């Protein structure tokens, strides 16, 4: 449509997306991943005094102290003693792969609870300029609808102070916690890595894309950072050889089809509802680690500084990034950088308003016939949309989403998907309780509500073989 959205719309979208990264990554670390590393039940044995000292040593958290940790411990104890373990039921507590002492576990459990509240609070940022969270509504073709809120000093202040509280939590609690947990699990810096990385990039800082993207676009093959290349949408294909779909083996998303077959009648070859996305025919990991590696390879100032800081603190080199631990650290590294960058976007917005530039929407006419592509990076990774328009209506729409990149199955050449590749060689202490597998799978932040591999636990030879 040849449409350029106004600067203010671009900035407000960046602010909403930035807030999404902050919230999503915080929830991922504390609520979807931390319990793979933190044994909550062990926290009941912690000495609150020693915990308070430990917490003071590792972070500047705005909460803590002996009374505080005693309170959290009592709360957990009341919960466990109730005999109703609820969400903590039947997990791997006491598993030998848990390495943290009770005090570190208590500190992490306390921060798990604090982060639950902080993430909820932070999403007021989305409500302010998006109407609500989840499923904010104000982002529309041509710009954004929240012009009234953008012009309200109250709303702007509310956004800024919520942002500040969230960013403080990220730098004073999240980052130190990632470093503290990682220090007990350095062996995971050599487990769970993949080879190829892809990012569309995100956060355009001018109307020029991809040049102005704060998180840059690029692709890296075989861990060769020096060989980082620009990523092109024409080089994406989706392959269905091992998926429950019919049609040709692979197609570019513009021509993509989604025709499911009944798994009961599809034979043994297909094993997934995911198609297998490929870039130049190669599987690629997407997400925080891919983004950080692309940025690092391109000499990105903030990402390079944050990454080097984290690597230095842990006493490891860049090779450690290609791992489960590297993935989890990269998520935090980019959260710190993107969160900090939000302030400058916000100030740019204020500057525009001061100058009298209040445009938020560019009118457009829906074309009779067109095709279009939208390339973004969202917290979980590369997200591409391809649309064909006929008679002003959607004729075909295909999305290639992050979890499809990461969790997609093999292709017709037998090349493994990234999660499949990452799991090979995972050491497992107790095959009946494969906590270690969860660590790597969760480190990708999979979103698999809508497409999951079916692995028959009775015939899964791969894991059994690798255990020995």
């Amino acid at each position, binding site marked *: 449509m040849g449409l350029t959205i106004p600067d203010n719309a671009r900035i407000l979208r960046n602010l909403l997306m930035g807030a999404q990264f902050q919230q999503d990554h915080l929830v991922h670390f504390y609520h979807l991943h931390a319990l793979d590393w933190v044994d909550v039940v062990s926290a009941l044995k912690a000495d609150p005094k020693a915990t308070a000292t430990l917490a003071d040593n590792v972070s500047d958290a705005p909460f803590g102290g002996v009374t505080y940790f005693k309170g959290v411990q009592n709360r957990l104890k009341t919960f466990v003693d109730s005999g109703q373990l609820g969400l903590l039921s039947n997990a791997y507590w006491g598993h030998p792969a848990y390495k943290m002492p009770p005090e570190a576990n208590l500190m992490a459990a306390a921060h798990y609870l604090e982060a639950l*509240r902080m993430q*909820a609070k932070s999403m007021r940022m989305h409500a302010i300029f998006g*109407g*609500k969270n989840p499923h904010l509504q104000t982002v529309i073709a041509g710009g954004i609808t929240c*012009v*009234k809120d953008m012009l309200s000093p109250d709303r702007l202040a509310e956004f800024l102070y919520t942002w500040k509280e969230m960013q403080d939590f990220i730098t004073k609690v999240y980052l130190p916690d990632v470093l503290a947990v990682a220090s007990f699990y350095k062996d995971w810096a050599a487990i769970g890595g993949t080879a190829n990385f892809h990012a569309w990039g995100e956060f355009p800082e001018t109307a020029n894309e991809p040049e102005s993207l704060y998180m840059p676009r690029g692709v890296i093959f075989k861990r060769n950072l020096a060989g980082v290349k620009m990523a092109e949408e024409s080089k994406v294909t989706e392959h269905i050889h091992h998926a429950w779909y019919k049609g040709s083996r692979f197609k570019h998303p513009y021509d993509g089809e989604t025709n499911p077959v009944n798994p009961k009648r599809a034979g043994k070859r297909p094993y997934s509802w995911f198609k297998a996305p490929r870039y130049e025919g190669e599987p690629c990991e997407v997400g925080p680690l891919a983004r950080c590696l692309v940025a690092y390879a391109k000499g990105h100032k903030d990402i390079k500084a944050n990454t080097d800081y984290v690597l230095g603190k842990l006493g490891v080199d860049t090779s450690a990034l290609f791992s489960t631990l590297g993935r989890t650290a990269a998520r935090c590294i980019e959260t710190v950088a993107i969160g900090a960058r939000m302030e400058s976007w916000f100030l740019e917005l204020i500057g525009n308003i001061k100058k009298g530039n209040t445009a938020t929407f560019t009118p457009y006419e829906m074309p009779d016939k067109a095709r279009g592509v939208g390339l973004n990076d969202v917290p979980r990774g590369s997200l591409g949309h391809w649309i064909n328009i006929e008679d002003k209506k959607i004729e075909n729409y295909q999305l290639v989403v992050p979890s499809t990149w990461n969790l997609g199955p093999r292709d017709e050449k037998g090349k493994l998907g990234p999660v499949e590749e990452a799991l090979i060689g995972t050491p497992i202490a107790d095959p009946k309780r494969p906590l270690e597998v969860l660590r790597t799978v969760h480190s990708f932040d999979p979103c698999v509500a809508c497409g999951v591999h079916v692995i028959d636990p009775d015939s899964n030879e791969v894991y059994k073989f690798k255990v020995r």
Partner: protein
Amino acid sequence: MENGLFDRLEQKGISRRDFMKFCGYITATLGLSAAYVPRVAEVFAAGKQRPAVIWLHMAECTGCSEALLRSMYPWIDELVLEILAIEYHETIMAAAGRQAEEQLEYALNKYKGKFICVVEGAIPTKDRGIYGRVGKHTMLELGKKVTKEALATITIGNCSSFGGVQAAKPNPTNAKSIDDALGIKSVKIAGCPPNPVNFVGTVVNYLLLGKLPATDSYGRPLFAYSKTVHDQCPRRSHYEAGEFVTQFGSEEAAKGWCLYEMGCKGPETYNNCPIVKFNDGTSWPVEAGHPCIGCSEPNFWDQMAPFYEQK
């Protein structure tokens, strides 16, 4: 109120101030008189056994679970640690895989006939439900098995309530609402996603009065869904005065005029968004300049589209 109550609350990590604020909020949402505030307080402080919840995920996006995670009155950690016993919830439970499935069996056994089943998502029914599976079961089998043993079933979100996006045309898996797929009658917390306050309100109603709230003919609680968005809209006076926004980003939009001409479905949509608002009462779509898309109504994807035009 006696001191014992607050002592017990403080043991649970809940401050007196937060708690009273929450009770007032919930009582107001439910449309109860202020006299109920102490009773609501008692409900949350009382009892060693928390009401058990088994939360099922069908064909959905997990937005309704995410909405619940944004609950601030009560805080989500209070909901999961002190108020409810969420015995099964695939996204946020610590167990995974086989351990998670064992937990479901355990909870079904332990709380047989006594738990509240919450369902998020529609159920694919084509080819005997083969397009939606959790572990070894189809969602159809799982839904039947669990709701059969439940004291009551609450369907959260438009997908479980009415089929949602899964059931929109062309609906390749013949996805259906929980009621239609399983032949049961549920209480429907409609919305995409709904406001967590309305879920909490329903649970409180149950704990407080011992029964599920009165509903409209679709099964939506009257305390939240008895009036149209239009009737409660703070921009209503602009509608009456004929002051309409006709383009996004315009001067009229900046003034907060009525969004009817932009396709607002507020007149056909029953929900309490304008009163309760989302994310700690911060805002709601119309306040942020976007027309209501009617997300708490049956089949809204097909019925309410196009979203940006009046039909």
